[in-house]
């Protein structure tokens, strides 16, 4: 297996991009990535997307974006794993480069959630859950996560305020991110008094709905310096799945797919959680942040509120969590989110993150999740020189 580098990245601001189509949005992120480095060729594009078939009446997204970039006839296709699509695309791109099948692979994610109105976007996003045994009963995606949150507070006695405080931290981080959809600060009261989405989940526990595209370019580590002066190595990467239905899970307080993917990625990278300086985790809801930090090995079970209070998830703490603002503030263009995370970690490790920069970061981790932890991808990057 060849070692794999990320030699460039690009992204658009996450926003309601009324004036840009799916393909134009992808083009913008791809152009940024291609202009940063001296790349004579792209051999393949792996694109991640969840909702275009529902919201933009479009399948065959690989062809759409290859055509937009004038790159036909290269190999180009889409990978779908709900909100975990971006992580799945990164794993696919990694495997294609690592195996020697292709040399330079563009991995990109794109999502246009605002191309449809009313309930359609919520309906499309809900399809990450089990249509016959969850959605059939009127469950929504937020309500399934609410089951986790209610159980978590019941078992650990965690105060409701802790979840609001995590949203406050995410907004503080995101206020420094020029690509964030909601780049403003909030306070605990705003979060606690926002409207109910699915009790106990309120608006400020949720990621917003927005459009965005992000791209990273991969090649074998051994040739990376040919194309770019600065790059990162993907030291470890893994995916895992869990039962589609929450009823089949042993408990609601941990998401097994995160544990499995993280353990395999740590093993491949030959590191432990203690070696990680920064993470971009999949905080679709504040409760998924709490559980994910525990499952990734950054927090003792049920101690999320205590560690959050102590500043453990800020620079200088145990690990700097979501310097981008995470899904909460940067936004969650679902199929693209995993690629945003990879681009953001690359940006941090290359010390190109401007006001968001977490100083002296050597090792970063991304955690991208589809469904309620039913499909998870973890990757670990290290600054390469």
């Amino acid at each position: 297996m060849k070692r794999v580098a990320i030699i460039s990245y690009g992204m658009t601001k996450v926003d309601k991009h009324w004036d840009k189509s799916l393909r134009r949005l992808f083009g913008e992120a791809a152009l940024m990535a291609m202009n940063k480095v001296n790349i004579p060729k792209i051999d393949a594009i792996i694109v991640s997307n969840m909702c275009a078939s529902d919201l933009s009446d479009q399948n065959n997204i690989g062809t759409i974006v290859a055509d937009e970039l004038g790159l036909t006839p290269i190999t180009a296709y889409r990978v779908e794993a709900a909100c975990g699509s971006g992580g799945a695309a990164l794993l696919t791109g990694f495997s294609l480069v690592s195996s020697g099948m292709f040399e330079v692979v563009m991995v990109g994610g794109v999502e246009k959630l605002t191309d449809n109105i009313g309930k359609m976007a919520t309906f499309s996003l809900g399809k990450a859950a089990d249509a016959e045994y969850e959605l059939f009963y009127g469950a929504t995606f937020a309500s399934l996560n609410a089951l986790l949150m209610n159980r978590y507070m019941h078992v650990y006695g965690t105060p409701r305020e802790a979840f609001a405080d995590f949203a406050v931290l995410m907004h503080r981080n995101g206020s420094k991110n020029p690509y964030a959809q909601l780049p403003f600060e909030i306070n605990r009261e705003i979060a606690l008094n926002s409207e109910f989405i699915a009790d106990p989940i309120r608006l400020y526990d949720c990621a917003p709905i927005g459009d965005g595209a992000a791209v990273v370019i991969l090649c074998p580590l051994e040739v990376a310096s040919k194309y770019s002066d600065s790059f990162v190595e993907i030291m470890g990467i893994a995916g895992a799945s869990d039962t589609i239905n929450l009823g089949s899970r042993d408990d609601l307080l941990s998401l097994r797919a995160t544990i499995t993917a993280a353990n395999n990625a740590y093993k491949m990278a030959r590191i432990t959680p203690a070696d990680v300086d920064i993470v971009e985790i999949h905080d679709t809801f504040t409760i998924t942040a709490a559980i994910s930090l525990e499952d990734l090995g950054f927090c003792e079970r049920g101690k999320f509120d205590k560690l959050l209070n102590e500043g453990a998830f800020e620079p200088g703490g145990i690990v700097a969590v979501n310097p981008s603002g995470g899904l909460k503030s940067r936004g969650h263009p679902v199929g693209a989110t995993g690629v945003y995370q990879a681009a953001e970690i690359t940006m941090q490790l290359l010390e190109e993150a401007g006001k968001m920069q977490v100083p002296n970061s050597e090792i970063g981790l991304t955690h991208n999740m589809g469904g309620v932890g039913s499909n998870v991808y973890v990757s670990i990057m290290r600054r390469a020189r």
Partner: protein
Amino acid sequence: MSVPRYWREMPYRIRLEARKCKLCNYVNYPPRTKCYKCGASEFEKYYLPQRGILLSFSIIRNPPTGFEKTTPYVIGLVELEDGTKLLTQITDVDIDEIKIGMELEQTFRRISEDGDSGIIQYGIKFRPKYLKF
């Protein structure tokens, strides 16, 4: 929802039929081709218990299409007497009185409707346990 899609799940959604693994006794619900716990593919038909307790719940105030008439409603994860867990609606209860750990029993109900001329979908909901057995 098309009629065949609704109809073929009826044994599992209305009679709560499950597949009990002949090798390890794990109850696979909803049914699978291979056992979740041991991977075996020999099962016997098994009916889920009718009572259980509430493990967690959420209240839905912005419903998906087809659920408008009963909003707000409660979604719950129920642990049945044999340990099998099932996600469905909790009904016949004041939203303020619903509690994790409360005892529940099954009841046959209308779940949703596909507009004015579509099919009406039925299934099992759970309600607070009234009768003592």
